[in-house]
């Protein structure tokens, strides 16, 4: 037992020495490296991972620059040159999205001065109009961008219909677009009440009165009364948070307008844009045909038109 212990001890001693030497060497190397990093911090991995750095001017690094940059990457690498003609697309989808961004920015700024309460809402609008620095500009930007967005969304839909871009393989994206259009109209409707002026108040009164006539869920709609709908438990009541357009309705439309619908619309927009890419880019002029469709045909070879963007 004792012998064994001794042997192990000797072995351990030499091993320990080697280990210590190795450790010292590594320590020295690291110290040198750190000294270098102190002199030129912009060459360290930490620096390069946090701050953007310039790469060599090679085709490869330039391609990587586009592929790895999220903002450049949102655009397709190549698209059909006919599809980008303004006379073809009118740029309405892009303009709608741009207006959505303008509305988000100005809307968030307006939220800094607006209280969704019966006592303060209209006063805050007057305050924004007459006293807040750039308040009038912000409010009018928000108002006009909202009007414009309704117009551009409809024109976008009109363009997509006229160019037949709702056809295969884009049927799903058409449906997503219809949902987005409804969400846009709902955003407009919920924003109507927020100034709490006579115009908005009566517009919401009229608009939610229509909800009384909802089939099954409204107390004046078909089969509504038979299902036990009253002014105090139907769909209008849930929208307004009461039986009349009052403080609950103001608060609810504020939350739908500023939080819920923009979030839902953003998710749908993400899907919408992704599907544009997935379905072969912006729909190009001429009939969109997939190669697989053409192969089945017999007779003279037709002109092959690939979905634009797919080369």
């Amino acid at each position: 037992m004792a012998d064994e212990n001794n042997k192990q001890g000797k072995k351990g001693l030499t091993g320990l020495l080697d280990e210590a030497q190795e450790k010292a060497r590594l320590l020295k190397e690291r110290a040198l490296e750190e000294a270098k990093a102190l002199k030129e911090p912009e060459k360290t991995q930490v620096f390069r991972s946090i701050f953007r750095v310039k790469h060599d001017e090679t085709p490869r690094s330039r391609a990587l620059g586009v592929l790895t940059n999220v903002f450049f990457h949102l655009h397709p690498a190549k698209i059909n040159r006919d599809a980008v003609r303004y006379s073809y697309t009118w740029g309405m989808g892009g303009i709608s999205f741009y207006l959505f961004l303008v509305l988000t920015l100005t809307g968030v700024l307006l939220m800094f001065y607006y209280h969704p309460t019966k006592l303060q809402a209209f006063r805050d609008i007057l305050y924004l109009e007459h006293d807040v620095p750039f308040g009038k500009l912000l409010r009018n930007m928000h108002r006009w961008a909202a009007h414009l967005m309704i117009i551009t969304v409809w024109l976008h839909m009109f363009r997509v219909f006229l160019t037949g871009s709702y056809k295969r393989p884009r049927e799903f994206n058409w449906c997503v677009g219809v949902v987005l259009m409804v969400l846009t109209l709902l955003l407009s409707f919920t924003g109507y009440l927020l100034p709490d002026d006579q115009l908005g108040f009566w517009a919401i009164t009229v608009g939610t009165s229509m909800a009384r006539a909802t089939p099954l869920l409204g107390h004046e709609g078909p089969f509504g009364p038979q299902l036990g709908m009253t002014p105090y438990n139907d769909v209008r009541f849930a929208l307004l948070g009461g039986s009349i357009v009052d403080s609950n309705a103001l608060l609810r439309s504020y939350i739908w307008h500023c939080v819920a619908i923009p979030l839902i619309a953003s998710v749908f927009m993400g899907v919408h844009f992704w599907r544009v890419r997935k379905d072969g880019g912006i729909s190009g002029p001429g009939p969109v045909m997939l190669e697989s469709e053409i192969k089945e045909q017999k007779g003279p070879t037709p002109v092959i038109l690939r979905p634009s963007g797919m080369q």
Partner: protein
Amino acid sequence: MTEPSAKEEKTASPAAGSKPASGAGGDGQPQINTLKMRRRIIWASIWGFVGVNFLMFLRFFFPRTLFEPKSVFSVGAPADFGLGVDTRYQQLYRIWVVRKPDRLFVIYARCTHLGCTPDWKESENKFKCPCHGSGYDSDGVNFEGPAPRPMDRARVELDAQGQIVVDVGKLYKCAKGERCEFDDSGAYLQA
């Protein structure tokens, strides 16, 4: 989906072998069924939980208590009102008290088209809705514009002190093609 289930089968079979009760038919098959059942139960619980939460979310939008103007109120004695349309309670209670030679009734001031409050035009002897132009005569009966029926009337009663008590929670309708409720008891007071 297939890969993890195969793995689970492998890991589960030796454990199941030690349990004599579960392995009735033979090796393998009952264990897979057990695992499938367990998975189904877990998914059912998850979806059940999500579904119940969604129902709670929907119920959340229907408040139990409302802070709205009261629907039953007193508007004074019948003698306080002269012949014709009285607008003094329009702002406060959204009603007009109308006195005719033979009876007194209360019109609920809500346009039957889409719910705006019409204006009483004294000079033209009619109610006119500013939203979409519905017109009603001094009885609240529609004669122009998109309104589908006369304006509703609120329940009126005399209390022990001879005061008129109005209840706008109970409205009397007179829709076309349905029984007119304007002559029901409670829809008017005999003058």
